[in-house]
């Protein structure tokens, strides 16, 4: 790793990762439970039309949803790690996703449709954000342990509520509720998650130079002229919003938000001017590949992408962790 980051290196790396992501998107469009020759898209006539239908109406939306959700989760994780100054923090640790789950499960239990379920998930996430803010907002210490403890306690409480809702659910609804919790991209919207990802990434990038300083500790950041307390809540809100959007659109997909920023940090260093956009692209890439596997491993049966992500993600995470311990 060079001694410091230059704009040239930053652009080169981001260009490279973007190219990889584009290739993965093409792969995701070409591969599915029925393999279609991509060249047919250009043909006129009925055969070409059928191929276009599958690719543009089925695979493209799902591909874009995977890109948006993967990017949002990696962004949320990266910000959460800076916020808690812990390289192994997960975007789910502060209870935002737990609140979303409770909202979504409650809506499913009441027999609501997809739109209402998403809305309820968003409201649940918002409720936890407000509660964390109210309970931990006045903590002005240097260690800021109250934020972590409040979030973790709230996450545990939401977990208990989710279990309660599942145990009360009639058999007919249980399957749908469990599938929501597993994380699935087949019905995920892509339009607003993608737009939100762009907006949140721009805001996070705007803060990147000062967040670099904040990662060194609150007192050092104060000494360098930052308003650390306001900034912390800005980062918390950005991270919670990204996490809530991802969970609302695709359910609980674990480990993208933890592993991608962590692995890229080891490869590229901590400078967030590079790490934030690289993590978003990397998260999109990883979730997209996991979704391709989820669609093809047991085709024609489709697996929930959250399960595939966990099955692959956990061993990779443990391997990274043990390598870190050895180093």
């Amino acid at each position, binding site marked *: *790793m*060079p*001694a*410091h*980051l*230059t*704009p040239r290196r930053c652009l080169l790396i981001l260009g490279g990762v973007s190219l990889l992501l584009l290739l993965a998107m093409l792969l995701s469009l070409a591969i599915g439970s029925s393999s279609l020759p991509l060249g047919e898209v250009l043909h006129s006539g009925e055969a070409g039309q059928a191929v276009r239908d599958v690719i543009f109406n089925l695979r493209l939306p799902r591909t874009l949803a995977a890109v948006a959700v993967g990017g949002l989760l990696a962004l949320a994780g990266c910000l959460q790690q800076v916020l808690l*100054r*812990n*390289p192994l923090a997960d975007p789910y640790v502060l209870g935002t996703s737990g609140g979303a789950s409770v909202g979504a499960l409650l809506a499913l239990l009441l027999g609501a449709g997809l739109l209402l379920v998403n809305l309820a998930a968003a409201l649940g996430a918002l409720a936890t954000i407000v509660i964390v803010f109210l309970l931990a907002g006045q903590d002005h210490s240097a260690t800021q342990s109250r934020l972590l403890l409040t979030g973790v306690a709230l996450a545990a409480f939401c977990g208990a509520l989710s279990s309660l809702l599942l145990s009360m659910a009639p058999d007919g609804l249980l399957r749908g509720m469990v599938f929501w919790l597993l994380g699935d991209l087949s019905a995920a919207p892509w339009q607003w998650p993608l737009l939100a990802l762009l907006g949140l990434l721009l805001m996070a990038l*705007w803060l*990147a*130079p*000062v967040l*670099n*300083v904040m*990662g*060194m*500790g609150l*007192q*050092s950041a*104060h*000494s*360098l*002229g*930052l*308003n650390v307390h306001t900034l912390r809540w800005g980062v918390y809100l950005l991270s919670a919003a990204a996490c809530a959007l991802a969970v609302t659109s695709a359910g609980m997909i674990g480990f993208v938000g933890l592993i991608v920023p962590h692995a890229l*940090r*080891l490869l590229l*260093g*901590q*400078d967030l*001017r590079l790490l934030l956009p690289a993590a978003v692209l990397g998260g999109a890439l990883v979730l997209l590949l996991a979704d391709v596997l989820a669609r093809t491993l047991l085709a024609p049966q489709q697996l929930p992408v959250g399960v595939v992500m966990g099955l692959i993600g956990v061993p990779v995470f443990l391997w990274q962790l043990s390598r870190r311990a050895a180093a």
Partner: protein
Amino acid sequence: MTLACRNLALSRGGRQLLESLNWQLAAGECWLILGENGSGKSTLLATLAGWLKPEAGEVSLAGVPLAQLPRRQRAQELAWLVQQDEQPFPQTALERVLSGRQPWLQGWQWESPADVQLARQQLARLDLAMLEARDLGSLSGGERRRVALAAALAQQTPWLLLDEPLSQLDLRHQQQALAVLREECRQGRGLVMVTHDPNHAWAFATHALLLHGDGRWQAGPCGEVLTEAALSALYHHPVRLLRDGGRACFVPG
């Protein structure tokens, strides 16, 4: 430009550490803050840096209360080296020192070649030139401490507030760092340093502030304040001044 405390009172955990401190520091003065563990040395430094709010009274810089000074301007005037060094994320020594340029950069403005050169100079002054690309996590405690000092120097502020900058350094690097600080003073910077070694006074300090930890304090030029009697009372342990030719040294009695 003067740094001043007016009627400052500090307390921590229900203990009154400092009462009605009236203290004037002029540019080019180098102050040692001495006192027992828990006597409020770091608390006072954090208050001077604007991190802690005083219980009563105020700190002002060139007549402007610190609380009214815009943060960025404060960071261009005061550099604060904190006692604890946390490094949860990978960062190279050069990146850490470059972070000292933050108050002088606008938004996304990238560090200029002049910034990088300045940062490298500070590393070289503290014998760290060879380590610039090393991750801080792989450095020893004393090396990390010198990197943090280099970062504070790179901030290029008229005032340096240093909390035990030399505590983990070996003999040679302590002398080297003291020489660097002496040079900074000679260039007109004001320096406030928390330390446990009154002998640092001989190296570069002009003044000393003694904190007794019960509200009492004593400030003045080293020659007046640093006496056997005063230090024995401060540390609740006999302290003797040994002379060897032109040199003098405080030792525990």
